[in-house]
């Protein structure tokens, strides 16, 4: 992520109820076109305001990386702003700014994406510049050395100096064995130190091509016009041939994994995760949607079970949540995290969460409770329409991880169809101890602060 100050790792965000939906009451027409060179273009016309967002998604991210070069996708994302054949370092951003635009980029486990939000008539500026850096990136040693320092600072900010962030990194590395999800998106510090400009050049050559990308435009635009502008700017970029990516399927987990992680911190922290399938990997879609609702029952809204029973009822947690991202590319984790209430232990909190899971295994959820979760999903689908950016994000992400953007239109119906029995069944089938990883972060005392002050 190249953001300056806002710290959100999109796919890395553990705790959001991902709700990809299409409320029946609104038109939801997506126009699709594939250029001869393989570039896929998706357009959604939304005329509420005279603005548009343009996003270019590449099918590459941290989960495509292998040992020794972790973080290369993200560093390359940074370098995509540092000059091309026809643009000086920083000139890309300067042109977007001069056109009143906002821009940024983000890297996840399964994608790297670039975006500009602009007044709708400036669409061509965005397409021209994205086409330029898709084919003519100019990787320069001087810019690289500096930008690598920036990425290391980003890592220190997000991970080294954030006790919970650091804990999550160790947690993932233990939970996954052969899956590339074990590596941090930003890369291990040593890999960053060892990285060479040549690593980036190879990565760029290998993945940045029209037939590995999706252009998504949402806003006050005309689809046919977007298609013709895209043809004009991207049409001549040659496709490249790809060797299929290795599958790197996670090996079966054969028993619970536990670890203690010590951090300089004040509050203890619990992380738990069960191995689960996702939309892209399952042949039983209903299971995935049932897991989605299961995470809602536990953690969607203030009335959900973890808040209701663990934070308010038993007061064993000061906060607790569950999360599941059904849109990952590879098998993933059904996650729990929490901080014990004052005077309560990590063991007690873990036990309370396990007991909630046991409950779900034994007793089907009440219809009223299920309806409450579905109502939230339906409302959230409307709320998301308030943002062009998120509409584009949904399409781009589904397409890029391999699910296909058309799945978006099914989401709401599939979620609505989930029954209490299905939720009970997935709890029994997937939330089992042998597939569980647990981490207890134990806070270590912070050196007492020394403070010095003097006049300037």
């Amino acid at each position, binding site marked *: 992520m190249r953001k*300056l*100050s806002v710290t959100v790792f999109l796919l890395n965000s553990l705790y959001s109820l991902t709700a990809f939906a299409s409320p029946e009451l609104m038109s939801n027409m997506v126009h699709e076109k594939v250029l001869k060179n393989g570039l896929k273009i998706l357009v959604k016309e939304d005329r*509420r*305001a*005279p*603005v548009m967002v343009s996003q270019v998604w590449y099918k590459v991210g941290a989960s495509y990386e292998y040992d020794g070069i972790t973080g290369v996708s993200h560093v390359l994302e940074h370098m995509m702003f540092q000059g091309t054949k026809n643009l000086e370092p*920083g000139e890309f*951003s*300067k042109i977007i*700014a*001069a*056109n*009143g*635009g*906002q821009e940024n980029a983000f890297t996840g486990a399964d994608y790297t994406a670039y975006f500009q939000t602009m*007044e*709708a008539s400036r669409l061509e500026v965005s397409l021209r510049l994205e086409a330029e850096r898709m084919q003519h990136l100019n990787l320069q040693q001087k810019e690289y*050395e*500096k930008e*690598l*320092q*920036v990425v*290391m*600072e*980003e890592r*220190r*900010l997000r991970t*080294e*100096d*954030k*006790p919970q962030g650091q804990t999550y990194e160790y947690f993932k590395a233990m939970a996954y064995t052969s899956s590339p999800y074990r590596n941090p998106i930003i890369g291990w510090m040593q890999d960053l130190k060892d990285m060479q400009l040549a690593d980036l050049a190879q990565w760029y050559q290998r993945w940045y091509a029209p037939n590995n990308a999706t252009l998504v435009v949402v806003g006050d635009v005309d689809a046919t016009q977007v298609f013709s502008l895209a043809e004009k700017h991207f049409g001549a970029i040659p496709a490249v041939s790809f060797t299929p990516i290795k599958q790197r399927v996670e090996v079966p987990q054969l028993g619970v994994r536990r670890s203690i992680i010590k951090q300089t911190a004040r*509050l203890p922290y619990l992380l738990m995760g069960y191995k689960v399938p996702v939309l892209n990997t399952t042949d039983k879609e209903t299971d995935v949607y049932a897991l989605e609702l299961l995470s809602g029952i536990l953690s969607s*809204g*203030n009335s959900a079970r973890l808040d*209701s029973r663990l934070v*308010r009822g038993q*007061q064993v947690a*000061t906060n607790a949540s569950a999360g599941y991202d059904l849109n990952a590319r590879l098998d993933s984790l059904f996650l729990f995290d929490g*901080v014990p*209430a*004052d005077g309560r232990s990590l063991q007690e909190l873990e036990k309370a969460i396990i007991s909630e899971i046991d409950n779900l295994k034994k007793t089907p959820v009440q219809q009223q409770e299920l309806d409450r*979760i579905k*109502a*939230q*999903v339906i*409302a959230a689908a409307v*709320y998301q*329409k*308030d*943002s*062009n950016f998120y509409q584009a994000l949904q399409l781009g992400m589904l397409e890029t991880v391999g699910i296909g953007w058309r799945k978006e239109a099914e989401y709401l119906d599939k979620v609505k169809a989930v029954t209490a029995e299905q939720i009970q069944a997935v709890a029994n089938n997937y939330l089992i101890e042998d597939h569980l990883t647990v981490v207890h972060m134990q806070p270590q005392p*912070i*050196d007492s*602060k*020394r*403070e*010095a*002050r003097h*006049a*300037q």
Partner: protein
Amino acid sequence: MHSKVSVLLAFMLAMVGSQSMAVPTIQHWQLANGAAVYFVPTEGLPLLDVQLVFDAGSARDGEKLGLAALTSVLIDQGAGSLTAQQIAEQLDSVGARMGASSSRDYTSVSFRSLSDQQTLKTAWGVLTKVVNTPSFPAVDFSREKQRTLLSIKQREESPGTLAQLALYQQMYGSHPYANPIQGQYDSVEKLSVDELKAFYKKYYVGSNLTVVLVGGISRQQAELLVDQAVGRLAPGEKATPIAAVDTPLNGAVIQQSYPSQQTHVLYGMPVLKHNDEDYFALYVGNHILGGSGFSSRIVKEIREERGLAYSAYSYFSPMLQKGPFMMGLQTKNESLDEAVKATKQVLTQFVDKGPSEEELIAAKKNISGGFALKLDSNKKLLANVVGIVVSGAPLDYLNTYVQKVNALTAKQIQQAFQRRVSIKNMTLVTVGENKDANN
């Protein structure tokens, strides 16, 4: 966290007014109990966004630090005969969202719901009870107090938060803005439920309230909803103005030692009240200095030239009394000296010489060309209107904004900075593994 809220406010006040686009008209009326209402009808989506803004921020805490914040936390934890769980269930059953939070100046209750009758009947019914008859149950009070205490403890594991707290304390001295919004451990521990009730009774009143609604409802509906939710609040008394802020003559340097890999660096001084006559000049100047990401000088120098930080920025945060001008970054401990010197140098030079013509043109292009982006969703519209009305800006603020920005000269910006900002007056806080901490 607090800084983010302030950034947003400063930002939202700034984003406004193009001639090329229809600017929404803000409708306004007043209730008998003094509540001021602002409404912008929108089309296209069946949803309603509302914010109730009470003049009841943490600056009203007095000796009881954390009182305003804890009151706002308890507001939806029991109302009339409803328990916290019932409140949550009713809102969740229709997918509505409600939350309350405090800043130094205000406490806001925010609400989002689908706008159909059936949904609103349930969701708005809950909001009405929460605003009018919060019950502050003892069990919820003691739990939320414990949670706040833990959250206060957790501040100590974040060097960035520690830096913010130290900076506000130094910049504002004995002024109420000096204190953390959530209060201090000792002060929160002492709070009683009766104190929360008294605070609610005194400050959650009609004459202290601004209501903003944006969404797919009619004026008539809006009037009915507002009457229902806040029409029966007592008029009460308007909160007395918050004391003026004395600008310290000289800034201090505060170095806190913390076992982190990065040192967090913050510069700050109190500068701007809402509606200050220098606002536009300072806003556009800051856009160039450190407010517009990659095209701003601080980012260019600290990040693009030297690779010293991931995040580097500056901003003005206008408040009811003088809110801060801040500059910030985080850098590995070894680079601290270089980063501090470079930041200081950028500011000094900017104040000294002002922006170049080229920079000013680029800033104007960015602000005016991006105007449409500021109002492209209900959520942003709500944020903008709240920013305008709580600051007391004229309701046609959006219509004249770009004009005012475009009228500025480099000289005016330079002069405004020279009048209002000086590195000598800024407090510098560093929190990190600082070898010189004992100097």
